[in-house]
């Protein structure tokens, strides 16, 4: 499976939400990382044929996806950010309905729905109405619907947003399980999700892909170093104004700071191995808050 984004642009009233993106994706898990408003959802909606690009094209195995129409959507599984559902439908009804609009034959759909309900751990609530399920359960029903047609392309927009830690870990593991042998594009602003699941990371800012690579490539390519130091409370203000601080923790001996900087920020600072969160702050620090602010 091969998806090529060729000079892809989407403008809304002159504002470029997606700005001339060129990208090739093959099988594997792609983590799309960016702050809110970076253009992730717009990009994903174009990939799902929900929005037409202002200019540029998307090719699937060499064919334009908008010309492929249903043929392309047959290859697609999508879990949107705002996952809407039919409140009066049971989990089973919902999956059978989505199976029907995905063009899956009723007999196959029954079998597949049952299998996925079991796989996402919803067997006990199969006949319960969707409106009565918890947020995590609804998300699991959402991933089940995306997987109904066993899609070679799986697009997940903020799949773990709003889930409690247990549900998030469970959901992350589920995505990992389901991601074999397919192209998965996963958008989130929860850095740890990407760190755990993604083979390749795409960093998106102001509608453009500003950096891409594996976790190691991202970390090693970061031009600045990461430092940790314990400093007295009265020095914190000066350091946060001067450097990007990715973490701050009060301890009885002082304040433990994690600082991103090319130079050693203070005498006691120790150089540590960067995490993806540090890379994220390095690229999106300004967006994360005021300049030189902490995460």
């Amino acid at each position, binding site marked *: 499976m091969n998806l090529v984004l060729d000079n892809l642009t989407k403008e809304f009233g002159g504002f470029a939400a997606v700005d001339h993106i060129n990208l090739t994706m093959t099988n594997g898990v792609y983590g799309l990382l960016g702050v809110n408003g970076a253009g992730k959802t717009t990009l994903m909606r174009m990939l799902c044929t929900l*929005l037409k690009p202002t200019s540029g094209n998307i090719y699937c195995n060499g064919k334009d996806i908008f010309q492929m129409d249903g043929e392309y959507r047959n290859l697609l599984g999508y879990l949107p950010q705002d996952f809407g559902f039919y409140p009066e439908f049971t989990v089973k009804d919902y999956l059978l309905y989505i199976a029907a609009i*995905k063009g899956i034959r009723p007999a196959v759909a029954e079998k597949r729905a049952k299998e996925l309900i079991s796989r996402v751990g919803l067997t006990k609530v199969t006949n319960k109405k969707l409106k009565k399920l918890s947020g995590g359960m609804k998300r699991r029903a959402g991933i089940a619907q995306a997987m109904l047609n066993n899609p070679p392309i799986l697009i997940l927009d903020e799949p773990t947003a709003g889930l409690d830690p247990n549900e998030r870990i469970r959901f992350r593991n589920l995505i990992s399980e389901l991601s074999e042998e397919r192209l998965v594009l996963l958008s989130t602003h929860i850095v740890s999700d990407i760190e755990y699941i993604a083979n390749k990371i795409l960093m998106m800012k102001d509608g453009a892909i500003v950096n891409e690579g594996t976790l190691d490539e991202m970390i090693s390519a970061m031009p600045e170093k990461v430092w940790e130091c314990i400093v007295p409370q009265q020095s914190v203000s000066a350091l946060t104004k001067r450097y990007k601080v990715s973490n701050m923790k009060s301890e009885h001996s002082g304040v433990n700071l994690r600082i991103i900087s090319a130079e050693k920020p203070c005498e006691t600072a120790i150089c540590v191995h960067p995490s993806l969160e540090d890379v994220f702050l390095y690229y999106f620090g300004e967006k994360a808050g005021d300049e030189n602010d902490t995460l």
Partner: protein
Amino acid sequence: MMKMTRFELKKIFSKPVTKIVLILLAVSLCVVSYFAIGYVDYVDENGEKSTGIAAASSLREAKNEWAGYITDDVLQKVLEENALINNSEEYLSTDVIEREKAYSKKQGFSDIREMINWAFGSFQEYNYYRADSVSQEEISSFYDRRTANLAAWLNSDEQESRFSEPERQFLISQYEKLETPFYYEYADGWAALLEYAPTIMMLTVLITGFLVSGIFSDEIQLKADSIFFSARLGRNKAVTAKIKAGFIVVTSVYWSMIFLYSGIVLAVLGTGGANQAIQTSFANWKSFYNITYLQDYLLTVSGGYLGNLFILFLSMLVSAKTRSKALAVTIPFILLFIPSFLSGISVLSEVLALLPDQLLQVCTAIKRFNLYQLGTKVVDAVPIIFAMYFILFCILLPVLYQVYRKTELK
């Protein structure tokens, strides 16, 4: 496809608002049927008025004593009988009950008496007592007077500019084509049924609007649109399934209401008189539609169905285009009530006669003279609205399909 349509129907009927809608439909049916049944009353020999099954049965018995062709002999007999009652003590009394007793004796031929009132009055004026002064010699011109009255009215100064010559000829020719003598029997069941048919149809379209207005916009309002439109059939067969579901809902609700309403009213008031000319009734004397009660009923319910389809599919189109259920649900109200507000403006009558609300009141529209000259052919508003809204409905379907399938998420 059937599976998708079934799920679309399930979406509609599983909503809590649907229960309220179904209750409203049931209440409307009961109330309108009650009024329609109450439309027929019978005054017994003691001057007491009653309604319901027994009243309908007594009235049927009284009227069917006069059943048969309304020939000169029958008309003369009506005049004789009428004069006899007019000279009775009860009729001449000032006591209301006594006068009601006198009326009870006229009930059997009251419809024929009303026709005489119309025939021997001027075209636009109705005089309840005109029949009392018609002579036995005059009565032989009964049928001719109908056409003569029309011709006199058409040639009057006030109507001169209203109708063109072909339109006048058309009306007179229609009047002349009416088969005489009329066959007469008790037909009050049909009259009552048709009297309230527009009410039940309007209530049905307004209430059904709440069921169908969300078929297209709900996907967007529930935020289920992303998954819907990214599915393989989301932009073709799934849209068709929605249209099919809308069609099934509109059709099943409409015909259920009509069959139940017709069944209740005709079961109580009787089905007699189905094949007699509508001109035998007080309300339809002037109509130039030479049809029977049954044909009037079929025309009325067919028009109602087409009107329901057109108005509700327009509502669905608005729902698909604007993504707003609230706006869509107002469409039937706008289409049905705006013409009522404008009906007082006579210059608009030709336009108002072509609006879709007329389809829901064909039995009323056929009493009016809304003529249009298309080339050399004169056509009434009723066949025009049938053809026009059928074509518009056929156009609406692909437009609705295209509008919804091209939906882009914002």
